[in-house]
């Protein structure tokens, strides 16, 4: 078998050390390798750029890392149809650079695009600031090819945006953390690159003002490509409301004027686009010292997002620091620093509160997990159904055993 090597400590997954790393050359090889691994009873960890490998729970077992690094080709960019077919091991940056040659993009921003791969982004359902306008990856994905542990290569969806034939397996694979099959290729719908883009912000130290502005913006006819609230630290309490406008110059100018009218409490001024990298900055900060930090992803209804952050910072304020960025979709990334016990306590209390309001709290990276606080929180009453699907597609628990919700 080509491209098979012993694993090193650098290949460990959430502290579990696998024995081997294999990097198949193409889809057929990958299918053959996976089927052989299953037959041999090995636990397989699919890996793209490895940028989010410690999301989810630690695996129950990890024997073989299956790398998609060599499946990195852009197979077809049909720019006139606004679609692209790409292999799972291609990085987001490489994809975007190719698409830009015809003035197009995948309307999705991810963490560490120079290293993160399509397969990894899909499997973790990562989403960035553009989501509020363009949707999540599930809304941009129109076709997928999945290799199951028994070696079956299954494709669903197709190459056209509008297609309702058969079941939506692309949706099933998105966010499944590689527990149902290994994604080998994906087909996306694309968007034109904007003619112009301007980022503006305004500052307040009043949570209420920020909440009101957020609500007013969500209820307005303004068309923004991104809308977030940055909370660099709980003390002092300063909130930045960032808005990204993309389009024609006339459209952008008119909209900024309308935004200023809504944001009566502060001046709206232009800032650099790097504010949209705040989420990535929090993730990078976490990695500097994971043992005394916790990185949380919270999902609430848009109207409740800031309230959730306020609760968290209330609980931790005397003993921990918090930094957060909240997307107008209701998804927030929070970095907490402090003693492990305090972080665990805060996480559990807030998780309960958020879940009872219909939201979720996911712990990214495993510094603050314990026996009764796993990475995902409650999977709800659909968990048996999820187990049934897992049992159908991966009956032997070959892929990422134990990493997913409910210990799947």
């Amino acid at each position, binding site marked *: 078998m080509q491209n098979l090597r012993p694993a090193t400590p650098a290949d460990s997954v959430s502290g579990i050390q696998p024995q081997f790393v294999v990097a198949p050359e193409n889809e057929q090889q990958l299918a053959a390798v996976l089927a052989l691994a299953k037959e041999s009873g090995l636990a397989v960890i699919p890996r793209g750029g490895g940028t989010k490998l410690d999301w989810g729970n630690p695996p129950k077992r990890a024997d073989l890392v299956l790398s998609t690094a060599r499946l990195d080709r852009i197979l077809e960019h049909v720019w006139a149809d606004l679609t692209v077919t790409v292999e799972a091991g291609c990085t987001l940056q490489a994809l975007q650079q190719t698409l830009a040659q015809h003035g197009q993009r995948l309307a999705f921003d991810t963490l560490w695009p120079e290293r993160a791969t399509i397969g990894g982004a899909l499997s973790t359902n990562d989403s960035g600031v553009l989501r509020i306008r363009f949707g999540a990856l599930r809304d941009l994905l129109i076709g997928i090819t999945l290799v199951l542990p028994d070696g079956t290569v299954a494709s669903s969806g197709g190459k056209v*945006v509008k297609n309702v034939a058969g079941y939506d397996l692309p949706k099933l694979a998105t966010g499944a953390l590689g527990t149902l099959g290994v994604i080998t290729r994906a087909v996306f719908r694309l968007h034109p690159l904007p003619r112009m883009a301007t980022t503006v912000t305004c500052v307040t130290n009043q949570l209420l003002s920020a909440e009101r502005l957020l609500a007013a913006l969500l209820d307005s006819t303004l068309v923004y490509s991104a809308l977030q609230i940055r909370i660099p630290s709980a003390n002092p309490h300063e909130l930045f409301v960032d808005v990204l406008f993309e389009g024609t110059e006339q459209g952008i100018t008119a909209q900024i004027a309308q935004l200023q009218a809504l944001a009566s409490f502060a001046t709206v001024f232009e800032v650099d686009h790097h504010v949209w990298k705040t989420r990535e900055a929090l993730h990078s900060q976490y990695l500097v010292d994971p043992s005394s930090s916790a990185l949380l992803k919270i999902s609430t209804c848009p109207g409740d997002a800031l309230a959730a952050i306020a609760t968290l910072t209330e609980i931790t304020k005397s003993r921990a620091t918090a930094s957060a960025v909240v997307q107008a979709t209701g998804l927030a990334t929070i970095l907490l620093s402090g003693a492990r016990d305090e972080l665990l306590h805060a996480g559990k209390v807030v998780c309960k509160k958020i879940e009872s309001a219909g939201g979720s709290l996911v712990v990214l990276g495993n510094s603050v997990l314990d026996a009764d606080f796993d990475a995902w929180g409650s999977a709800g009453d659909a968990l048996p159904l999820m187990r049934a699907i897992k049992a159908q597609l991966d009956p032997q628990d070959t892929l990422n055993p134990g990493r997913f919700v409910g210990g799947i």
Partner: protein
Amino acid sequence: MDARILQEFRAIVGPSGLISSSEDLHTYECDGLTNFRVLPVAVLLPANAQQVQSIVRVCHAQRIPFVARGSGTGLSGGALPVENGIVISLARMNRILAVDIPNARVTVEPGVINLDVTGRVQPHGYFYAPDPSSQSVCSIGGNVAENSGGAHCLKYGFTTTHVLGLEVVLPDGSLVHLGGKCLDAPGYDLAGVFVGSEGTLGIATKIILRIVKRPECTRTLLAAFPGTNEASAAVSDIIAAGMLPAAIEMMDNLAIQAAEAAVHANYPDCGALLLVELDGPIAEVETLMVHVDELCRKNGAWDIRVAQSDSERALVWKGRKAAFAAMGRISPNYIVQDGVIPRTALPQLMNEIARLSRETGLRVANVFHAGDGNLHPLVLYDRHIPGQEKAAEALSFQILELCLAAGGSITGEHGVGEEKKCMMTKMFSKPDLATMQRVRAAFDPLQLCNPTKVFPTPRLCGEKPGEYVPHKLESSGLAERF
């Protein structure tokens, strides 16, 4: 059906919720695909989710297949009853349960009519985006089953883009919650799998929908072209220029004639009509509309009009939305198909369809969502002429094969249902279909939930449906097919 089981059903839904007499059952023997008919053994009309659960538990215990039905407007036979099975109509579950404007969410029962969702949130300046042409009569539950689209899904997406969560009764009678009112519920995206599963995985009893703010302005442009090739070229130019209109619709001359005869939309008499709708901030839309006008002229448009008021806009759309029903003005019968092709294949496909039309002597009118390549060829025929119906069916399936050959799909909106399940093997490989069946088995191991739909059954594929007989509502003039 066993009298004892009928009695169990009657006890669940009450006597007014059970239909078992032969004359009344005929209303439910088909949906919008009227040339496929099967009489159900009984029809049940539950009033709430608990009743749905109880019904399904009886079916599970007794191995009775069941088919859920919304408004029965589907065009692929999704609500066609199954032999020896029952129909569970969701028509009584038609309440809008919650409206949450600040979070832009509406929770509804499955029997709520699509347009009524917009009606409810309109006063706040919102609308429910998926807009199939049947939206004044079709149900949200049905939209969920088919992942319905509509003219505006080019920009706004499909039903699956707007469904955040579902309460579902599984085929064993248990109740589960898929997705939720907040994004990214942990676990598999089962809400995403359920939408578009054509009623084969369970019955939705509650749906959480996303609503969208009405844009600041909407401008609709109508352009007359010498033919579909020129109009297609204009569409390609518009997309290549980096614009994403809210909708781009095309109609060919035959479709225009029919629409004019039916609703007098005052369309110009031309080879092909393009309807381009832009929406968004006023300044943005006005800038882009100038550009769209230029691109249309560049490609030979000789009459361009921009709707100046809501009523003008409504009239422009009326012609397009009435297109199917309007076919009755120019032909005794028609078959409509729903293939999708990559947009760039449009001119080639129009030529192929014209060729097939010449060869068979059957006229084909074309109406389509030009922005996303979703074709609706309307094959016109007269069933009183021997052999024409079979020829028309054959032509409509040949068009689907052309769509597949061009890299497209057999269905963009109407679903596979009963009508196109034999074509699934042409679109997907055996491993693809086997994998989908494994997912299905996780939801419905006993194969009771709309069991004969979507996937090919060797016995039935190859059999032709019977002679077309119009539904009595159609022949009495009380209803038209969309």
